[in-house]
């Protein structure tokens, strides 16, 4: 078996909030708790879950855009958390991020050309005419005209800006791209174009993706493997076809049933969804999902289920399969 490109073990990120006067109360928000995943070279790994489940924070923590509090992150064998100075910059070159909001992800006062050549200059990859040549090639690769080079972000639509963001992420020729909800801010028709572009780039450049999304159909189409997150933890993980077609974890099932079914003949009554996502500041004891779970057993409120490999493929953290 090949060495994984990215391997994450027990990643956690807690935020502490101090509120109140005169006696401030400290609350710890466990945004990401014990998240483990591996991404192989060229593989697209989906991370799904509802809003606030910590999927974006997990993605940022493994890039060290927020400092993780615990766990082990290795990129091609190299310890990401221990990297400092030059080592960290070298690592950053190999993993890039595409953001959700194409309107805030570009510097409004920087021309597209400058935004694309600056990373090359900083990393000493190319400068001057050579950098411009590369930037123009990137623009072409993401489907933008060469005259975009001298223009500014405000002259572009959301979809075009997202293409620019993708081109910028490619300037350093990374091996892994973390795509944080890359299409959720776009119109549906534009979503499809940008997704096609991402898949094309993936095939042509052999890029690995960590694809963060709440849209199951997008993940089904784009990814090879997927992990379902709930309240900062991964509850189920496995090949995308199996996990999204026959989810084992009750939460993954609920998530699948809640996503729209295009064929009216197949539509049934929507399942009843119990309660709301609990606060990550006060997660319930035992399995974090038990207050909303229809299969909850006494054991669920006491012990936290561990991720267990399943014969169907992948692994699941649920006492039903214990």
């Amino acid at each position, binding site marked *: 078996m090949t060495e994984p490109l990215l391997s994450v073990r027990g990643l956690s990120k807690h935020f502490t909030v101090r509120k109140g006067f005169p006696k401030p109360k400290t609350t710890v928000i466990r945004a990401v708790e014990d998240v483990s995943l591996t991404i192989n070279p060229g593989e697209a790994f989906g991370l799904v879950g509802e809003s606030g489940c910590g999927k974006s924070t997990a993605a940022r923590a493994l890039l060290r855009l927020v400092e993780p509090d615990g766990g082990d992150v290795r990129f091609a064998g190299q310890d990401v958390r221990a990297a400092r100075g030059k080592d960290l910059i070298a690592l950053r070159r190999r993993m890039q991020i595409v953001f959700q909001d194409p309107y805030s*992800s570009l*510097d409004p006062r920087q021309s597209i050309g400058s935004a694309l050549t600056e990373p090359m200059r900083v990393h000493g990859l190319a400068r001057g005419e050579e950098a411009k040549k590369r930037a123009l090639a990137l623009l072409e690769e993401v489907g933008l005209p060469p005259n975009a080079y001298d*223009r500014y972000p405000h*002259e572009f639509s959301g979809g075009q800006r997202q293409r620019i963001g993708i081109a910028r992420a490619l300037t350093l020729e990374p091996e892994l791209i973390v795509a944080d909800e890359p299409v959720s801010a776009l119109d549906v028709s534009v979503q499809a174009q940008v997704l096609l572009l991402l898949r094309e780039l993936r095939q042509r450049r052999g890029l690995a993706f960590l694809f963060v999304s709440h849209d199951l159909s997008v993940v089904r189409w784009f990814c090879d493997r997927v992990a379902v997150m709930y309240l900062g933890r991964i509850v189920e993980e496995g090949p995308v076809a199996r996990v999204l077609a026959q989810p084992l974890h009750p939460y993954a099932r609920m998530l699948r049933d809640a996503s729209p079914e295009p064929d009216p003949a197949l539509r049934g009554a929507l399942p009843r969804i119990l309660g709301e996502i609990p606060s990550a500041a006060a997660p319930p004891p035992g399995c974090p999902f038990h207050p909303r779970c229809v299969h909850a057993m006494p054991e669920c409120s006491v012990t936290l289920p561990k991720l267990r490999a399943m014969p169907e493929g992948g692994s699941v953290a649920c006492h039903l399969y214990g």
Partner: protein
Amino acid sequence: MSATVSQPSPLRRAAQRALANPTTTLGAVIVLLIVLGAVFAPFITPHDPTEQDIISRLQAPSADYWLGTDQFGRDIFSRLLYGARISLVVSLGAIAVSIVIGGIIGMVSGYVGGKFDLIVMQAMDVLLSFPSLILGLIVVALLGPELVNLVIAIALTAIAPFARIARAPTMALKERAFVEAGHALGYSHTRIIFLHILPNILSELMVMGSLWMATAVRVEASLSFIGLGVKPPTPTWGGMTRDGFENILDAPWLAIFPGVAILLLVLGLNMVGDGLRDATDPKLRNE
């Protein structure tokens, strides 16, 4: 996709919008005339501003002495033009220094945040609590009435407001994804602050600068008036006003003309600054 629209800088757009307003245009004309007068003073002035001529002392305005003469027989008009140089150089220098220092303090403080930000901004608040004239007076009294010291004194009084003006948008900008993208691309903090945050807040700093120019002119004139300005015989507007006070009953023009000059320059700068501020105010932009 065909028409290539080049983006004018926000400051230039603001200037265009501001000049659509007649008050701003009038202010700009006043300031421009004074600047031109100061720059070309040696070619315009009919007399040497420091040449004393006891015989023609305290003359009323005439064809020869357009604005009259002072108690040493020096030409008021010539002295006013040379005095404008001091006013403009001191205030422009002071504002330039305080934009640079205050801007850096504000950006770094807002960017770093946390306890550092708290301490720096408390220090700025202390500085802000001094009225500019009092602070200027303390510094000039300590360092001596030299041109450079005047610049330092007035710059010191304007650093805190520029730090405040730079800090607020920096705090907003650092949360934007393009700053995070910069981190992901391996940019240094210095690069992010000076190449990505600064261009986005520059227009706000410049607008603030034009408003504070007026204050700087006023403080310089006030310090000269109480004798802490550039030393005589170099003509300064504040100093001329004070000199004129001794003869205010028999030769009122001695105090009136420099006073009017100060008034016009401060008024003109304020009109320009107000116009620029309104033009960059997002709430008023679409009216």
